[in-house]
């Protein structure tokens, strides 16, 4: 219903548009920028330009967002890898010439370990991990501690403790795969 005052007609706001609301949200944009900085490395990469393209693409595809599926922030983040990939591919010849393409895309593969296998691998290979990954995995996976507790044990931040656990788990995965092959 429109509200009529002496001089103006106040048009009611349009129906809720979660994509537009998210794109207006500075915290969402900050996260997109952090996301872009995390995934796209190398000289001459304009992260803000990538975010801008993500925003434009999300806006152009806003009809494709279904609130029933999940949060709009994750839907927006899903555009980042594709746009970053396109930008890096464009820059690939220059980066290769500069010796920057030392990381070759590796498939993640189906070798996601079952949870029981991970715990078993942690018991078998814990001693093969270097510090601080060993302590991080031990306290997180085997002692089932929160990241804050792992961080306190290691004298670092919870954010960094999470990185150490992730890297330790990836190392365990490599060790388990190597064991399977031999």
């Amino acid at each position: 219903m429109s509200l009529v005052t002496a001089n103006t007609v106040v048009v009611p706001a349009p129906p809720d548009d979660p994509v537009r609301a998210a794109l207006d949200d500075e915290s969402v944009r900050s996260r997109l920028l952090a996301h872009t900085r995390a995934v796209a490395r190398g000289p001459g990469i304009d992260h803000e330009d990538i975010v801008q393209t993500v925003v434009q693409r999300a806006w152009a595809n806003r009809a494709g967002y279904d609130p029933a599926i999940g949060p709009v922030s994750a839907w927006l983040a899903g555009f980042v890898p594709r746009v970053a990939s396109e930008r890096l591919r464009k820059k690939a010849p220059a980066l290769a010439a500069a010796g920057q393409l030392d990381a070759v895309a590796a498939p993640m593969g189906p070798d996601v370990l079952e949870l029981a296998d991970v715990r078993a691998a942690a018991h078998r290979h814990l001693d093969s991990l270097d510090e601080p990954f060993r302590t991080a995995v031990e306290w997180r996976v085997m002692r089932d501690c929160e990241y804050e507790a792992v961080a306190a044990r290691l004298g670092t931040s919870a954010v960094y403790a999470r990185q150490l656990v992730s890297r330790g788990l990836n190392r365990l995965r490599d060790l388990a795969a190597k064991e399977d092959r031999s």
Partner: protein
Amino acid sequence: MTPADHRLRLDLQTALYLAAIEAEDFDAQEEMWALAARDGELEEALHAAHEGLLAERGAGTTEVIASAVAKHLPSAELFQSTTGPVTVGRVADELFRHTPAKLSAAAHALNDRLRQAADELPAELGLTKLTAWAEAKFGPAEAGYWKAFREAALVLELRAAAEVEYQLAARQAPKPEGRR
């Protein structure tokens, strides 16, 4: 699935995502974000992975630069980020690098000690109040030292304020077309 299983599953997904980022495997990253679109906890974990990665790279870069400067330019001053609170230690560092001519040996000794202090400066930086606060915490010193200390503190406060303003002025992505 127990809560511990649930957490371990999230940790494994986060670890795989980190591996995908480091391998520049964008298809795998997209797959993970498709999962995250249906799982708020996974979304938070992936964002946290970004934070960790950026913090890690930032720390690594800072260490490399500091080490290179210390090795090749021992007399150079490495400007640290001025965001965050100005501490007594940072002010004493500033005084160490830009020492006024007339400080006594005792003042130099006190300044060396204060370089280790992590106490934040008080909000009020008037000379009388600052001197009273500092002498109560660190012991007496000649008036000239506290005057120089206050001037260095003001320099650092101004530098910190300027950096915050610079960050606020950093360019923003434009709004998409068709938006009012």
